[in-house]
């Protein structure tokens, strides 16, 4: 039996089958978001180690990130090529899709001592914006439980200006570097990787 037959029966019954209501010529956020899962994991929770989990991040951060890839402000291996494939409306639809999904964490090998030191450094240098130990996503990405390889790439990109560092963050990172050196940055990554 075809869907047309069912549709007409439903019309006869006077029922609206409420599911899909997006513009007819645009894929839904779910349809678009599902295409990302091959690299970023089902519903945006990555199995790691280098592709970040993108579930649960704010729509603003998602849109900012995709837009900066799309217009070349942020460098990457492959995302600069992929982001150009979507309209601004499609990026917004994907942003809403992923922001509703839970950020699922996998256990990561980490050094407990470094993670403990990182927790203290986080409080001092990062907590003001990345609240709740990096669990909250108001000011940017979710750091708690993010993949460590990705975090190292991101920090390296900030340091080597492949990605623009927000002013407040640049100041804090400079202080951290001056006080603790690379070991401090490493400890932070172990702290975020240790969170479940």
């Amino acid at each position, binding site marked *: *039996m*075809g*869907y*047309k*037959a*069912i*549709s007409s*029966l*439903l019309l*006869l*019954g006077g*029922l609206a*089958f409420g*599911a*899909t209501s*997006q513009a*007819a*010529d*645009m*894929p*839904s956020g*779910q*349809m*678009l978001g*599902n*295409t*990302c*899962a*091959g*690299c*970023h*994991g*089902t519903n945006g929770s*990555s*199995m*790691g*180690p*280098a*592709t970040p989990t993108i579930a649960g991040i704010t729509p603003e951060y998602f849109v900012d990130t995709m837009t900066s890839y799309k217009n070349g402000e942020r460098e990457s*291996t*492959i995302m600069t*090529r*992929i*982001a*150009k*494939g*979507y309209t601004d409306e*499609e990026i917004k639809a994907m942003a809403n899709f992923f922001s509703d999904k839970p950020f699922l964490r996998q256990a990561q090998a980490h050094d407990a001592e470094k993670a403990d030191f990182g927790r203290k450094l986080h409080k001092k240098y990062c907590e003001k914006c990345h609240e709740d130990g990096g669990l909250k996503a108001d000011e940017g990405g979710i750091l708690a439980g993010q993949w460590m*390889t990705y975090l190292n*790439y991101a920090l*390296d990109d900030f340091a080597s200006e492949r990605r623009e560092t927000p002013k407040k963050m640049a100041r804090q990172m400079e202080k951290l570097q001056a006080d603790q050196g690379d070991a401090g940055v490493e400890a932070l990554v172990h702290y975020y990787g240790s969170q479940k």
Partner: protein
Amino acid sequence: MSKFNRRDFIKLTGSAAVAGMVVGFPQIVGAAGKKVVIVGGGIGGATAAKYIRMADSGVEVTLVEPNADYHTCFMSNEVLAGERSIDSIRFTYDGLKGHGVNVVKDTVTAIDPAARTVTTAGGQTLSYDRCIVAPGISLVYDSVPGYSAEVAETVPHAWKAGPQTVTLRKQLEAMPDGGTVVIVAPPNPFRCPPGPYERASLIAHYLKNNKPKSKVLILDPKDKFSKQGLFTAGWKKFYGYGTDNSMIEWISGAAGGKVESFDAGSMTLQGAVESFKGDVINIIPAQRAGTIAQTAGLTNDAGWCPVNPKTFESTVHAGIHVVGDASIASPMPKSGYAANSEAKVCAAAVVDLLNGREPGQPSYVNTCYSIVGKDHGISVAAVYRLGDDGKIASVEGAGGLTPGDASAEMLKREVTFAHSWFQNITHDTFG
């Protein structure tokens, strides 16, 4: 679409639903109790099964697959190179069972599009409202005269990962230093367009570290291949490509690379111009859609399945969808990522159709990594949409290859991203 009649409807949904509808409660007719039978548990079939269940747990999904587990073709070249174990590319169907998929270990022998039934070698007849056929490829052995399924036991194609991957790995291990490995590349179209060239790269990588006097020779019926510029740049960097001492040599069709016959006894391949002897020979023959697609009459003259790209419903038989390598989804390649992406479009369409909704606009992606040497990965990506002409079209200005001037850091990252991609796509498909 087949004609709707009352008898079919009773058969498909059970009389309770019909009774409900007759007395005017059409909400009973959701997709609850609707049956989807999926033929084949590779990337396309497994993804479709999982995503249908995720979208609508009222749909009964049965996946019929002859094997108890699946070895991914992607990353099998790392097994050949000794970089990973065969078990690391093996996946079971336990994850799908966890999503409520009924997994049946059997071989589908016939599909009746009129009766909407699938018949198995084990004697089962399964009825369906919608069928998804995802049989992957079948190998056209006689595209290389002298090659056959029997010969392939000792001269493996290893183009379906599993026991043949292990055989080929053992032969590479046993080969003395100074030996020649010959890879016979297939004509277009075929599964994993960069695959033969990544295979040459990773075998050379193994030989360079273990048997440095050895060589890899690629005999190709074609005059160009996927990611050619990036591969040859990597081969120059790692394997002396283009020099007298190159570990990799590629002979194009124009240069006599097309193999006209093979003699297994003397391990000799007869080319158009000269003959070639190999110590280890890997013949990747021509390909077409998996056998059941042909038996069920879903293929065109070229041996592949034409589909409506919005739903992946066969344009030959209504009610049957075809995804993955067996389908014609050009310009999407026959890749694992494409099969995964097509299966999601198909799953969404099937769920819409079973719920009496018009399928929504599709969106598709392909991402494909190849590892050329130590800390040196390359990729190609594309975003696709359905064009106004009803055909799949690559979004202009998006996608493309790793830039030719990519830094060492970025090439190194692409290897890590390739491994992350593997972790994620296999979990997205089977997890």
